[in-house]
C-alpha cells in the first residue's frame, strides 16, 4: 500500500512537471494573450546589418527593414522581440516556431525553399572583396592569384573565387568576419570576401573607419529575403511593405546610415528591378 502511494505521488509530480514545461511554449505561440509580440530573427554580430551590443536596441540595415515591415504588419517597435539566429540555425528556428520571421542576410535559394518560405527580396547583394584602403592592386577576384584571402568557416564564397577566378589564391577560414578583419589589418591576408553589404557594414564600423574599402566589383547575385515558416500568410503583406519602404525613401535612408563613409553603392539596377517572390 505504501509503495502504491509513493508511485502515485511520483506520477502526479511527473505530470505537474510536464504540464509546467509545456506552458511557456503554448504561450509563445501566435496568440499570445496579453499583447501579441512579433519575434524577428536577426544576426547580433554583423555590424551595419544586424548588430546588438548587450541589451541595447539592435541596429543595422536588416533591423531597420524589420522595424518598417513590422510596423506595416501592425506591430510597433515595443512589440518586437529580437532573437539571434546564426546562419546554420535559421531553418530550424523557423520550423520550430522560435521566430515568426528572419531578416539575417538570408539569401533566397532553392535548397532553403524546401524548408522555409521567403518574402522579398528586400535587398540584392553581391559577393565582393574588402581590402586595406591603401591597396590598389586588387580590383576584382581575378587579381587574387598568389594573394591570401579570408572568409568565414561554413561559407563557400572563398572557394568560389579559387574555383572560378583565381586558382593561385590562398584561403584562410576564420570563425567570424571580425577575425578576418583583424588579420587583414595585420597584413597576413590581402582581402576578405563575402557579400558587399556585409563588407561595407564592417568597414563602416567605428573601430574600422578609414582602414578598409570595398572593391566595388560584385561578381555574384545574392537576393536577401525575409525567411518565413512554410505556409505563412504574411508573405504578401511583407512584400507590399518592402515595396512601400523603397518608394517612400526610408529604404535608401537606412542603407545610407548602415554604410556611411565607405563609398559603397549597391547595384542600383539589380535592386530597382528585383522581382518579388510569388508567395504561393
Amino acid at each position, binding site marked *: 500500500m505504501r509503495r502504491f502511494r509513493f508511485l502515485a505521488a511520483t506520477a502526479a509530480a511527473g505530470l505537474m512537471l510536464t504540464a509546467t514545461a509545456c506552458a511557456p511554449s503554448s504561450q509563445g505561440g501566435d496568440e499570445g494573450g496579453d499583447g501579441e509580440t512579433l519575434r524577428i530573427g536577426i544576426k547580433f554580430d554583423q555590424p551595419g546589418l544586424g548588430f546588438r551590443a548587450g541589451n541595447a536596441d539592435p541596429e543595422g540595415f536588416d533591423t531597420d527593414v524589420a522595424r518598417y515591415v513590422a510596423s506595416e504588419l501592425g506591430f510597433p517597435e515595443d512589440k518586437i522581440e529580437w532573437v539571434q539566429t546564426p546562419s*546554420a540555425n535559421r531553418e530550424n528556428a523557423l520550423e520550430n516556431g522560435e521566430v515568426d520571421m528572419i531578416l539575417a542576410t538570408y539569401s533566397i*535559394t532553392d*535548397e532553403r525553399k524546401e524548408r522555409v518560405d521567403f518574402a522579398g527580396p528586400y535587398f540584392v547583394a553581391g559577393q565582393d572583396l574588402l581590402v586595406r584602403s591603401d591597396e590598389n592592386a586588387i580590383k576584382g577576384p581575378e587579381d587574387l592569384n598568389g594573394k591570401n584571402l579570408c572568409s568565414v568557416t561554413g561559407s563557400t564564397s572563398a572557394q568560389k573565387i579559387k574555383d572560378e577566378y583565381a586558382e593561385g589564391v590562398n584561403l584562410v577560414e576564420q570563425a567570424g568576419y571580425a577575425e578576418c578583419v583583424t588579420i587583414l589589418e595585420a597584413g597576413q591576408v590581402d582581402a576578405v570576401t563575402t557579400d558587399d553589404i556585409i563588407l561595407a557594414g564592417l568597414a563602416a564600423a567605428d573601430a574600422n573607419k578609414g582602414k578598409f574599402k570595398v572593391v566595388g566589383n560584385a561578381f555574384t547575385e545574392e537576393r536577401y529575403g525575409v525567411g518565413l515558416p512554410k505556409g505563412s500568410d504574411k508573405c504578401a503583406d511583407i512584400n507590399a511593405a518592402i515595396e512601400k519602404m523603397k518608394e517612400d525613401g526610408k529604404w535608401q535612408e537606412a542603407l545610407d546610415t548602415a554604410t556611411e563613409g565607405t563609398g559603397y553603392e549597391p547595384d542600383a539596377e539589380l535592386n530597382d528591378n528585383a522581382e518579388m517572390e510569388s508567395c504561393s
Partner: protein
Amino acid sequence: MGELLSQYDVLGAFWMNIKLTVLAAVGSFVIGLVLALCRISPIGSLQKFGAAYVNIVRNTPLTIIMVIGVLGVWSQLQVQLSSDFDFNFFLYAVACLSLYHASFVCEAIRSGVNTVPLGQAEAARAIGLPFMDAARLVILPQALRGAVTPLGNTLIALTKNSTVAAAASVAEVSGMMKTMMEFRPDVMVFIFCIVALGFCLIVIPIGICTTWLSDRLAVAR
C-alpha cells in the same frame, strides 16, 4: 545522398581529422612524457614548472589556444611554421592540439606512476640508479602499462577535439559540416548523422583497443 557526398569531400575532411589526431597524439605524448618526468623529478623548479604548465594549459579552453596561435602568433607576430600556406595552418593546429593535450597526457602518466609501488623506486635507488635511469628502466615501463586507460581516454578526447582545428583554418570535418548545413538545409539531419556516425566509427575502435590493451598490459601484482 550520393550527390551530396560527391559535392562535398566528407571522406577527405575526416582523413584530415585523422591526420591531426595521429600527429597530435605523438606530439602530446612526447611533451606530456617530459612534463610527467618534470613533475616526478626530485628537482623542485622542474616540479613547479610541470605543475604550472599543466594547471595553466589544462584550464584554458582549446579554442582559445587555437585562436592565440592563429590570431596572435601567426597574424600579429607573423610567425610562419611552414612556407606552404595551408600546411602552415595544419602545423599550427597540430602544435596547439599537442600543447593542450600534453597536460592531460602528463596527468595520465602521473596516475600510472601512482600505481607503481613505492618499493620499486626505493629498490631502484638502492641499487644506485640515478633518477633518469630509475625512471626509464623501472618506473615508466610499469607506469605506462598502468596508464593505458587514461591515455586512451585522452586519445578519444583528442580525436573529437581535432574539430577545433577549424578555428585554425584547417579544412576538417566540422567546418565542412557547417558549410553543408548552410547550403543544404534540406538534408540537415542526414548531414549531422553522417558526421556523428563517422566519429563513432573512429572513436569506438579506439575505446575497444584501449580496454583490450589495458587488460593485456596490466601489471600483475
